[in-house]
Structures are given as structure tokens and as C-alpha cells.
């Protein structure tokens, strides 16, 4: 039995004292989440939820309080069409139809016009955008014709992404031209704040780097945001990889003055935001922490997961990971390293669930991992990312966007720490 005993010794009046499997654990956590008013899940045990609802009903949990009744009354009455009575609405369906048509037709016309204008612009700009994208990628025609590998698949591929990168480059170029002007015409900054705000100052350096990670609201779509948050630097403690070197390069470039913004941005761009980068920084942190913890079970479980190809193998690996998730990691109990690795463990369980097509389970594992409140790390960023993916798969785009934004925030924090640590 992997967990502490569910029943007292000798009490076997029910047949539920067997060890739980992963499905039962997932159902239990889905039930717990539902009972706390959070969203339901595919594995939600309906019968148990109904029973729970009955029990709550029995103790008065189904009563509508006077306060809520009054609030709802206000909402209902405020939403009623006060000018038109119910009878007049019901007796004139044609008038209602024409009113809708009257609203819909101009909207449809406007949408068509926008579509035509945007389409024309795209057709005109497409060759130029493609040419400039190839130039930026340094691609020869042969390379451009070559099949993309997995990493290349993470690079900007749509004209929107290319255009966005162009806009960012333009912004960096503006900074580049502003820097010499400042050097010629302005006195040296006198205060810390001025120094920070000055071209090439720390604020600009951080801002330029953060621009890479910050997505505008319009990019709250999972794909765009996911690609952005993947620009995660390693956690400061794991620096030594490319991210940190590139961040330092960006900082160094910034200190030169002229062209600082451009070089910082270029350095960050060359740091190639990719989901693989986030995975690699997680791997580095994991590789550093695992030997310190010295838990062979974890090593074995991870190896099993890394080998898993089929769903059956994934489920087997999940069983091992689930057993680990419920107990202490390492011999010395829950140290801070163990807490981080536990977060990683939950992250991997969430990833497995996603791979198995169980976004609800993935969401639960991700939320459990985030509830651990470990220090900021690439694991946390990945948990937010997975939570976003799970929410998107569950048909909750707003929630997904929020999760992705959280992932971006974590990455920004890691980036700031990385830059500050390198200074």
C-alpha cells in the first residue's frame, strides 16, 4: 500500500481497504476539486458527487439565503428589457427578427470589409515578410528548402509571428538610434532612477529582455503565449547554460551604450524561445538536484518514464510516479531540494496525463504542484504552462490564457534574477 492506511487495522466491513490505483486517486482529487466548487473533470465520479450533494442538501446546503436572493433579484430585474413588455415581444416575432437582422447586417458588412483589407495587405506583404524572415534566419535558399527539424518547428512560422518579430526589431532599432543621441546631447544621469531609465540602463536591459517574454493581450492564444513563455531562462542556481550566458551577453551589450537595445534583443532572440529550452532548463535543474537527493526510486521512475513510448508504458510509469508523489522524497525528508523535485514530479505526472489525453487529470496534478509553493523555478513555469494547456483542452480559453500569463510572470521573475545575479 503506497499511502498511509485508509482503514484502521481489522476493520474490513467494506471492501475498500485495498491500495488505490492511479485512476482512483485521480477520481478522488477530481471529486475534491468539484466539492470545492472548482471545475469538473472527465474522471469525476458522478455517483459520489451526487451522494455528496445529497449530504450537503440534508444539512441545509441547498437553501437560498436572503442576501443571495436579493442580489439575484437585482440582477434579474436589471437585465430585463424594461421598455418592451413580454407580450409585445412575444406578439411581434417579425419585428424582433428584423431588429436582429438590422444589427447583424452592418456587422457582417464591417467584418467582410476588414477581411478584404487585411487579406489584401497580407498578400502584398507576404513575399517581403518571407524574404526578411529568411534573411534574419540567415537561411540560404537551400536551407530554406530543407525540411524543418523539431527545433525549427518552434521558430516563427506564420506571417504574424514574423511581422511581430519585425516590429520588435524596429523597436530595438529605435533604441539603437536613441542611444548615441543621448550620449551626444544629454548630461550623464544624476540619480539611480535616471541611470536606470537611461538608454542602455538596467531598466532598458531588463525591459528589452522582458519584451521577449511579455505577450500582448491579443496573443493570449495558447500557441503564441506558449511559445513566448518558453523563453525561460534557467533559474539562477542553474545558470551556466546558454540562457545565462546569453543574458549576460545581453547585459554586456547594453552597457556599451549604442546598439544596446538591439543587441540585447538580438541576444534574447538568439536565445531562441522554444518549449525545448524550457524543458532543457528543467532537465539541467533536475540533473543537479537528483544526485543531491539520492533517491533511487525517483531515478528509476524517471528513467521508466523517459523510455515510455506506448500508452501502456506511460500508464505503468505513471503508477510509479504516483506512488512517489504520495510519500517523502529522499532519505532526509522534505528539504528545499526535495520540494523542488516534488514539484517537478507533479509536473511530469501532469505531462503524462496530457499525453494520455486526460487534461482534467493534468490540471489536477499541475494545481497540486503549484500548491507546493516551492521557490520560483523552471518547474513552476512548466506547471503553469501545462495548466494552461489542460485548461485549453478542457474548453476554458480564458483560464488557459491566465495560466500562460502566470507562466510568463514566473519567467520574467527568473529572467530578472538571472540578469541581477550576473551583474
Amino acid at each position, binding site marked *: 500500500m503506497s499511502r*498511509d492506511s485508509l482503514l484502521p487495522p481489522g476493520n474490513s466491513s467494506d471492501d475498500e481497504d485495498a491500495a488505490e490505483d492511479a485512476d482512483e*486517486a485521480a477520481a*478522488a482529487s477530481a471529486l475534491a476539486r468539484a466539492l470545492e466548487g472548482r471545475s*469538473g473533470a472527465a474522471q469525476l*465520479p458522478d455517483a459520489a*458527487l451526487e451522494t455528496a450533494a445529497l449530504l450537503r442538501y440534508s444539512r441545509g446546503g441547498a437553501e437560498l439565503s436572503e442576501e443571495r436572493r436579493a442580489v439575484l433579484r437585482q440582477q434579474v430585474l436589471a437585465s430585463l428589457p424594461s421598455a418592451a*413588455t413580454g407580450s409585445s415581444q412575444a406578439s411581434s416575432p417579425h419585428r424582433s427578427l428584423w431588429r436582429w437582422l438590422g444589427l447583424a447586417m452592418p456587422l457582417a458588412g464591417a467584418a467582410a470589409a476588414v477581411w478584404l483589407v487585411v487579406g489584401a495587405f497580407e498578400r502584398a506583404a507576404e513575399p517581403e515578410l518571407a524574404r526578411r524572415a529568411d534573411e534574419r534566419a540567415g537561411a540560404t535558399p537551400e536551407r530554406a528548402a530543407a525540411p524543418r527539424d523539431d527545433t525549427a518547428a518552434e521558430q516563427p512560422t506564420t506571417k504574424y509571428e514574423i511581422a511581430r518579430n519585425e516590429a520588435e526589431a524596429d523597436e530595438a532599432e529605435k533604441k539603437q538610434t536613441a542611444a548615441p543621441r543621448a550620449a551626444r546631447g544629454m548630461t550623464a544621469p544624476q540619480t539611480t532612477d535616471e541611470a536606470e531609465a537611461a538608454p542602455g540602463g538596467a531598466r532598458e536591459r531588463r525591459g528589452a529582455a522582458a519584451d521577449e517574454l511579455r505577450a500582448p493581450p491579443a496573443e493570449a492564444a495558447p500557441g503564441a503565449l506558449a511559445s513566448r513563455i518558453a523563453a525561460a531562462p534557467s533559474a539562477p542556481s542553474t545558470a551556466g547554460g546558454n540562457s545565462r550566458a546569453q543574458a549576460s551577453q545581453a547585459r554586456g551589450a547594453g552597457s556599451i551604450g549604442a546598439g544596446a537595445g538591439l543587441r540585447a534583443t538580438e541576444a534574447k532572440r538568439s536565445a531562441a524561445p522554444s518549449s525545448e529550452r524550457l524543458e532543457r532548463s528543467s532537465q539541467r535543474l533536475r540533473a543537479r538536484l537528483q544526485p543531491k537527493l539520492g533517491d533511487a526510486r525517483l531515478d528509476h521512475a524517471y528513467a521508466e518514464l523517459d523510455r515510455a513510448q506506448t500508452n501502456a508504458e506511460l500508464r505503468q510509469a505513471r503508477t510509479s510516479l504516483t506512488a512517489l508523489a504520495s510519500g517523502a522524497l529522499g532519505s532526509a525528508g522534505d528539504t528545499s531540494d526535495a520540494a523542488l523535485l516534488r514539484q517537478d514530479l507533479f509536473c511530469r505526472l501532469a505531462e503524462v496525463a496530457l499525453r494520455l489525453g486526460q487534461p482534467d487529470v493534468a490540471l489536477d496534478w499541475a494545481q497540486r504542484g503549484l500548491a507546493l509553493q516551492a521557490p520560483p523555478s523552471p518547474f513552476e513555469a512548466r506547471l503553469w504552462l501545462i495548466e494552461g494547456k489542460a485548461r485549453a483542452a478542457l474548453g476554458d480559453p480564458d483560464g488557459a490564457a491566465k495560466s500562460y500569463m502566470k507562466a510568463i510572470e514566473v519567467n520574467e521573475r527568473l529572467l530578472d534574477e538571472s540578469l541581477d545575479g550576473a551583474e
Partner: protein
Amino acid sequence: MDAELNDSSQRLWERSCLERARRGETAAFGDIYDAYAKRLYERVLMPVLGNPAAAEDALAETFRIAFQRLADFQPGEVSIYYWLARIAKNKALDLHRARKVTGRALANFENLLEPLLAPHASPEELLDREVSKHALGQAIQATLEQLNERYRRAIELRFLLDQSRESCAERLGVKLGTFDVLLLRALRSFRKHWEERAPTSSRPPEMALP
């Protein structure tokens, strides 16, 4: 059928409210809301949805729909409450159908209440059957006594004393995840004993009302 709803003075008052509401007086419609919202919520919506937030949404939507369709309602021998109850029930069933999209955790426990309800004599009564709280409490207590000590404690702490998961886990001396599993098993066990005590009807899960 409920005597209060069937009272002639009550129906006269309803007609007066309806006429004013049809003329666009939302305050008159507010009076109807005041009279029946709580009853609809507790007797119709909660047993079908089992989720307070969803029940509130359905209640608000019920009155919005009712206002839009006031012209359709023909006052007859029965209270407008039953008409509202039909709308409410259909709305609740709509929410069940939309579960996959909304992800809302909904629980229809009407069939679990069925053994405690008197046989209904009319379609209207089907929409407005009150469960005796006393009878329900007794039945639940009797079922709890059939469970093993640990399961009973888990259910009492979580549902009857309304303790948080964390508090329940601490008081039972288990980890949070273990408590979740324990509670799931306890609920399954409770349901098994509940159904053995009084077999529930085989209610169609999504019964559409006319």
C-alpha cells in the same frame, strides 16, 4: 398539490402581477420573483444541479426567460409557479447537457431523494415535492451508522460539520491526498448502503419536460 399555491387569493394576486408585468412593470415581475425564487431554487434547481452557483445561474435565467415569454403563459387553474418550475427544470437540464463545455461539476440527486417523497398525483406535483428535512436527516443518520467508523467520521467532518479538506485530513491523521481517497470510498460506501435501504428509481438522466 400545495395548498398555498392553489389558494384562490394567491392566484388572484398572481394575475394582477402578471397583468402589470405584461405592461412592462418590472416591479410587478419582481414581486413574482420574491414569491417563488427561493422555492424554485431549493425544490427544483438544487436537487437537479447540486451546485449552488449553477443553481443561482439557472434561477436568474429562469426568470429572464419567463419575462420574455409572459405572453405565452395562460393563467388557468394552477399557479404560475408550476410554469416557472418547468422552465427552471429545463434550464437545469440544459446546464447538464453543457457540462462538457462548461466543465461545471453538477450532481443530480433527485433519484436519491425519491424514496423519501410521497407518490406524486399530478405532473405539477412532480415539479414541487418537498422532502421532509426530518425524514431525510433520519435516513442519513441511519445509513451513516452502517458505515465503518472511519468512513462515517470522514463524511461527518466534511459534509455535516462542513470542515475543510485540510482540517478533515488533520483530524483523521492522514495526508490530504489520502483523505480525498478515503472520502471517495466513504461516499461510495454510503451510497451502497443508502440504495440498499431504499432502492432508488431508475430515473432517466435527462428527462425533458414539455
